[in-house]
């Protein structure tokens, strides 16, 4: 939140040069796309040919295009836009982008000598863009004074943006090469940040806030359409289902951690409970229970069992301090794993087949719809993972619904009050223990629900899927994305599942980076990437500027759209 920029004196003396610096930077970037980046033509999709830009060179040219646009804007000094902010983001990410590419070239082809002039030119361009951004004056923008569009037009904008999003996601997932994938992601952040940082982002946020329902609908439509872009291929759909299940579970955990403020380090056990229940009650030849109820019943039993475990583990420990709870839940997670490992008939009753787990769980069949088969819709084949994708999407929507509605209710207020000051909350008549227990068991219930689907999608369950590290990953998704927000957790979950899948080159260092990431995040941005404003304040208590900002936001929504305060984001009828 802190805006660290140059002293004003530097800016006044050199400010006039800023647009020209930026313009030069943009042009250098454009030129670099036409130059060779690598001596070695076998790597990164061949960057060795001049005047014939391939992937990464094209991204560089996009940096150039946006850089030039922003520089021109800067020259014209519009009162309602802040190109400076955009340039800073564009330039900084540009530096990261070029350094990443040059480093990868050096690493993959065995030496910095193989990096050709293109990269270096681009690097100079990026530095110039950044300098231009830092030297130019900040414009305080107030998007509320921008022209209001008709509501139809606003909705059209939302739909178009969502379509672009869909296209981008499909494109991104198609990139096979891990380094190019990462380069594209960095470029994407820089380009989008450069454009949106000028104030368009705030404006879009403003439009979005005014049209929450169309926005949500469009978002789900896009998510729903995604499998149709994959042309029957299961490769990306498999990752997508992983992301969805992970996101749904993490969002459930976010109720516990983000809303109620309880640290649960054994959350994976609840997912496991659901999965094991589903496996035991499935028609797998290894299932240990004779009863084979329909899947809807299985879901309820799985979720209810998980919730019961939640109550059992929660009721004794929720009274003690939060740190204890963290460790007890960790212990509970271990108990779960060990129990699943042991219950093989030799040690205790045979429920889980011990370390072997329960394999060969058949695909789901709901209302005659077989999830294992390929279905063709509108000429586009949808494979097994696409089928699971749809049901998981429904699950995610359900979890989101539960999350937002609980958050925006009497119960949500109670949770915030408990986080803020537990004793005061109790003295004001808030049922502290009951609310904590509720959060704990709702979280467990949702995880159990997700687990029942996961068992069928994975076709097997085994104890080693439910180790502590998985709980840590879930927690990291919540923390990385932003505690207490839906979008944050979706972002966090996507990053944590997608990057390792795509960045196979560095897979061995995955956990190392992950651990480091947690430490660095807590040090510099404990509120996560997409923070809930309130959480941000809790972590940066001393930040007066921030609190005034949040307050202004409250006033703004109040002032402009009183009904916005009605917390019913998902309600269909007006």
């Amino acid at each position: 939140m802190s805006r660290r920029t140059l002293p004003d004196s530097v800016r006044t003396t050199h400010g006039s040069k800023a647009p020209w610096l930026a313009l030069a930077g943009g042009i250098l970037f454009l030129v670099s796309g036409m130059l060779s980046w690598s001596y070695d033509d076998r790597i990164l999709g061949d960057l060795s040919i001049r005047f014939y830009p391939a992937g990464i060179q094209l991204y560089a040219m996009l940096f150039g295009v946006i850089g030039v646009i922003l520089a021109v804007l800067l020259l014209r000094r519009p009162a309602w836009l802040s190109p400076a902010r955009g340039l800073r983001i564009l330039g900084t990410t540009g530096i990261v982008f070029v350094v990443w590419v040059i480093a990868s070239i050096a690493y993959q082809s065995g030496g910095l000598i193989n990096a050709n002039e293109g990269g270096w030119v681009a690097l100079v361009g990026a530095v110039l863009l950044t300098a231009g951004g830092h030297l130019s004056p900040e414009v305080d923008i107030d998007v509320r004074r921008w022209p209001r569009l008709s509501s139809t037009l606003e909705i059209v904008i939302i739909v178009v943006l969502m379509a672009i999003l869909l296209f981008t996601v499909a494109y991104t997932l198609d990139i096979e090469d891990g380094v190019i994938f990462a380069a594209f992601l960095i470029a994407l952040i820089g380009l989008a940040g450069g454009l949106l940082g000028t104030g368009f982002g705030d404006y879009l946020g403003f439009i979005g806030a005014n049209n929450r329902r169309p926005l949500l609908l469009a978002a789900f439509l896009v998510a729903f359409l995604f499998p149709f872009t994959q042309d029957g291929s299961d490769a990306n759909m498999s990752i997508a289902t992983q992301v969805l299940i992970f996101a749904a579970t993490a969002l459930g955990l976010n109720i516990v951690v983000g809303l109620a403020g309880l640290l649960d380090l054994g959350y994976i056990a609840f997912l496991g409970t659901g999965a094991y229940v589903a496996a035991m009650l499935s028609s797998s030849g290894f299932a240990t229970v004779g009863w084979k109820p329909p899947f809807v019943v299985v879901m309820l039993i799985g979720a209810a069992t998980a919730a019961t475990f939640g109550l059992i583990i929660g009721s004794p420990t929720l009274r003690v301090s939060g740190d204890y709870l963290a460790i007890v839940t960790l212990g509970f997670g271990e108990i779960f794993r060990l129990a699943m490992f042991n219950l093989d008939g030799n040690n205790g009753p045979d429920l889980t087949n011990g370390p072997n787990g329960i394999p060969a769980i058949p695909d789901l069949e709901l209302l005659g719809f077989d999830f294992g088969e390929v279905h063709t819709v509108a000429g586009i084949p949808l494979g097994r993972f696409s089928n699971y994708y749809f049901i998981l999407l429904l699950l995610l929507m359900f979890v989101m619904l539960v999350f937002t509605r609980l958050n925006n209710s009497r119960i949500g207020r109670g949770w915030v009050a408990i986080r803020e000051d537990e004793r005061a909350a109790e003295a004001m008549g808030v049922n502290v223990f009951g609310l904590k227990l509720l959060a704990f068991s709702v979280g467990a219930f949702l995880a159990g629900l997700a687990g029942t689907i996961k068992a069928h999608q994975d076709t097997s369950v085994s104890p080693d899927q439910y180790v502590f590290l998985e709980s840590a990953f879930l927690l990291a998704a919540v923390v990385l994305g932003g505690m207490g927000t839906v979008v944050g957790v979706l972002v966090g979950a996507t990053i944590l599942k997608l990057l390792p899948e795509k960045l196979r080159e560095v897979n061995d260092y995955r956990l190392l980076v992950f651990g480091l990431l947690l430490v660095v995040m807590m040090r510099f941005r404990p509120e996560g990437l997409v923070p809930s404003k309130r959480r941000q304040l809790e972590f940066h208590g001393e930040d007066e500027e921030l609190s005034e900002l949040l307050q202004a936001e409250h006033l703004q929504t109040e002032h402009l759209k009183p009904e916005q305060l009605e917390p019913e984001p998902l309600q269909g009828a007006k």
Partner: protein
Amino acid sequence: MTVTDTPTTDREAGRVTVLQASNVTMRFGGLTAVDDVSMTVHEGEIVGLIGPNGAGKTTFFNCLTGMYIPTEGRVELGGELLPPKPLKVVRAGMARTFQNIRLFANMTALENVMVGRYCRTSAMALTSILRGPKFRREEEATRERAQELLDYVGLGRSGELLARNMPYGDQRRLEIARALATDPQILLLDEPTAGMNPRETEETMQLIFKIRDSGLAVVVIEHDMRFIFALCDRVLCLVRGSLLIEGSPGEVQSDHRVIEAYIGGDDEEETA
């Protein structure tokens, strides 16, 4: 258990008794923090509690609010024994503020007061997720009532301010609004004017009168003597855990023991 008759100091017998503490004693280990203190509070009455620091006021206060269960004696609220959990105490009709303001700092003023409505509303998880008409009515009612209370304490226009950003005096008043949101029969104020300037103190006094006139009973702990003697119908002075005197402000103010023990009399001669 015999409940003693209404104390003779009660000059207006016949009024409804809201809170009755009988022979409350509180010990921690070997230390007796509160020693055999009785207090009766009637509807529409302001009772002040004074005494030097460490005289057991706060401990006594905590016994009244159910934070502590007295070692001996009993506390009755509306004729019923005070339930042992703070939560139930609030539901039974007792609300309090804190000596050092304990608002939910990162919530808005309105949200703070809405939290106060928690114990008078009932929407649980399923209702909140399904959002039927009943839920919406209740939510709307909560919001309206909270706004009403903000207006009542004079913060009607500050609803969207974060509690942490409000001026000190407003925070104190917000705390009172939040306490009132629990629909109490009796309101306990712990140093409501600490840190206030004279104008704010005066405003607070008017607010407390207004609350009293609406039929609530009010108990106030305060150090500001001028404030207490101008405000209260009756004053109790605690010294070293026991009740030194109970009476009208005039009586207490002129009692030489009070001056000696609390306000600081001529200690040289007294103890020589």
